[in-house]
Structures are given as C-alpha cells and as structure tokens.
C-alpha cells in the first residue's frame, strides 16, 4: 500500500514536472489574463477574465431580479428574488430605520453583486472576482468615503462626535478617542480584507486538497475527496455569509453617518 501510494505520488509529480507545473499549484487560479486586448493610448482597458466574470455576475443578478417577479403567487425563482429583496430590506429597516429607505438600492446592489461574484467563483473553472484585493478595496472605499461624506454633509463638523462616545468618564477620554479614530480609519481595510481573505483562502484550500486527491490516486484519493466536498459546502456558506456581512457592515457604517449619537 505504501509503495503504491509513493509510486502514485512520484508518478504524478514526475508527469507534472514533465509538463512544467507543480501538482499543487493554488496560486495560478488567481492570475488575471486578458481575453480581449484593448489599448487606448497608454491605458490598458482590456477585457480580462476578472472583468468578464464581473459582467457575468451583473448579468446574473439582472436576469434574476428583472425577469423573475411576474406573478402574484410566486414561482420558485421568484421566491428566491423576493427573499433576497426581503433579507436586505429587513436589514436596512432594522439598522437604518425609516430614514434609511433611500439607501436600500445601494446596499442591495452591493449585496447582490458580492453574492453573485462569490457564488459564481465556486463553479469549477470559474474566476472569483472578489478574490482580488483591488476589487474589494474599491467596494470598501466606496462605502467608507460615501459614509464619511454623508456624515459631514448631514452633521457638519459635528460628525466628529462619533469619536467621543456618550457616557465615557473624562479621565478615559484621551485613551478612547485615539482608539476610536484608529478603528474608524481601519474600516475600509477590514471590510475589504475580510472579503478578500475569505475568498482567496477558501479557493486556495480547495485547490490544495484537490491536489491531494490527484496525488493519492484511485486507491486513497477518496479520503481527501470527502474533505473536499465538506470544504466546498463550507465555501458555499462562506460565500453567502461574507456577502451578508459586507452588506450589514455597510448598513452599520451608514447608520453611524446618519445618526452620529448612536
């Protein structure tokens, strides 16, 4: 058993080395490749695999939300669209209150795009748009800068009351205020890195365990295959959960901007 497993390992590794890449190669799936090269002057505006899958995500969301709702008694697909709507609407109502209704389209767009991008990335062979820090950082900066601007427009300089929570005894203020300021400016980074790290780590883990399946071959490969199935289920949960967490934190930051005195 040990000798055949060792032979299987060295056999596949030799074959892979002959082809020029490792058996376990979890980083290659994140490479950005140009599909339609477009250059305008000095700008590289090519359609990459990232852009293509982002377009597919947007298309999927539009297809679901625009074509499903037709009947009074919902079909199954319509129920999916309606429950997505209700989930985000309930969240905005609960966190932002009556004032927050205007922000619902923004939060829903964010949630739907991230959910679609995360879920589409789980299709074998697909590219996960949200596994790149630049994409999640762009989304997080939109939320952070938007909330800050809204806070200053609504409260003027009084928005800085956010850094002085009510009920803090005076001797503690010199410690609490810098901590509050630092934790405020960390928001875009924590928001973006949370989503990016979850997606990248999940897909890397899937690739590594899939490599184990191939390396162990037919005799023992079913063991890592079972682990792979379990981790794939976990990744489905994480995909939905991270989209929900991003949307919820967006609502919370907007709530901080709208109602400064918590």
């Amino acid at each position, binding site marked *: 058993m040990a000798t055949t497993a060792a032979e299987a390992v060295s056999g596949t590794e030799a074959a892979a080395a002959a082809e020029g890449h490792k058996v376990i190669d*979890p*980083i290659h799936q994140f490479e950005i490749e140009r599909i339609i090269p477009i250059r305008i002057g000095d700008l590289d505006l090519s359609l990459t695999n990232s852009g293509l899958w982002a377009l597919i995500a947007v298309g999927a969301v539009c297809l679901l939300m625009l074509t499903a709702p037709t009947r009074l008694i919902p079909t199954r697909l319509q129920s999916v669209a309606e429950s997505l709507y209700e989930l985000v609407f309930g969240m905005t109502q609960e966190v932002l209150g009556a004032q927050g209704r205007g922000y619902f389209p923004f939060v829903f767009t964010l949630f739907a795009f991230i959910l679609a991008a995360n879920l589409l990335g789980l299709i074998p062979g697909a590219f996960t748009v949200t596994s790149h820090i630049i994409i999640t950082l762009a989304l997080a900066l939109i939320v952070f800068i938007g909330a800050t601007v809204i806070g200053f427009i609504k409260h003027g300089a009084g928005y800085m009351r956010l850094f002085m929570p009510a009920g803090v005894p005076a001797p503690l203020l010199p410690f609490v205020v810098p901590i509050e300021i630092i934790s405020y400016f960390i928001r875009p980074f*924590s928001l973006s*890195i*949370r989503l*990016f*790290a*979850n997606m*990248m*780590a999940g897909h*890397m883990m899937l690739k590594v365990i899939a490599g184990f399946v191939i390396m162990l071959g037919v005799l023992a490969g079913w063991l890592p295959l079972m682990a792979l199935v379990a981790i794939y289920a976990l990744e489905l949960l*994480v995909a939905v*959960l*991270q989209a*929900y*967490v991003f949307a*919820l934190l967006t609502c919370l930051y907007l709530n901080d901007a709208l109602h400064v005195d918590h």
Partner: protein
Amino acid sequence: MDVEAARMIGAGIAAIALGGAGVGIGHIFGNYLVGALRNPAAAAAQRGTLFLGFAFAEATGLIGFAVAMLILFG
C-alpha cells in the same frame, strides 16, 4: 539562511493565526449553544448574530492564512 527556507518558516509561523480563529469560532458557537439550551424560544432570533460573529472570527484567522499563502506563493 536560504530565502526559500526562510519563506517556508515564515509561512508556517503566519499559519499559527488560524489557531486563534478556531478558538474564537468554538467560543462563539459554544456560547450560542449555552444560551439556546437555556432559552430555546429566543434562540432562533439570534441565529443571524451567530453567523455574523462566526464571520468576524473566521475573517481574522483567514487574514493570517492569506499572509501565509502570499509568503509561500506570492
């Protein structure tokens, strides 16, 4: 020290962060179970908070995992 060796050691040290993630997630779910067994009627309402807490704890651990992967392969 060889750069490759230092990479491997660095990645190994960065992956220790996942231990904290495990402890944190276990803590959150354990506390939820204690509360749910005391007050089953109120348990369902807090399931959203449960998953939210799980996401935060997992995220901090996975940042360490991401650093380890970036050291190894980036």
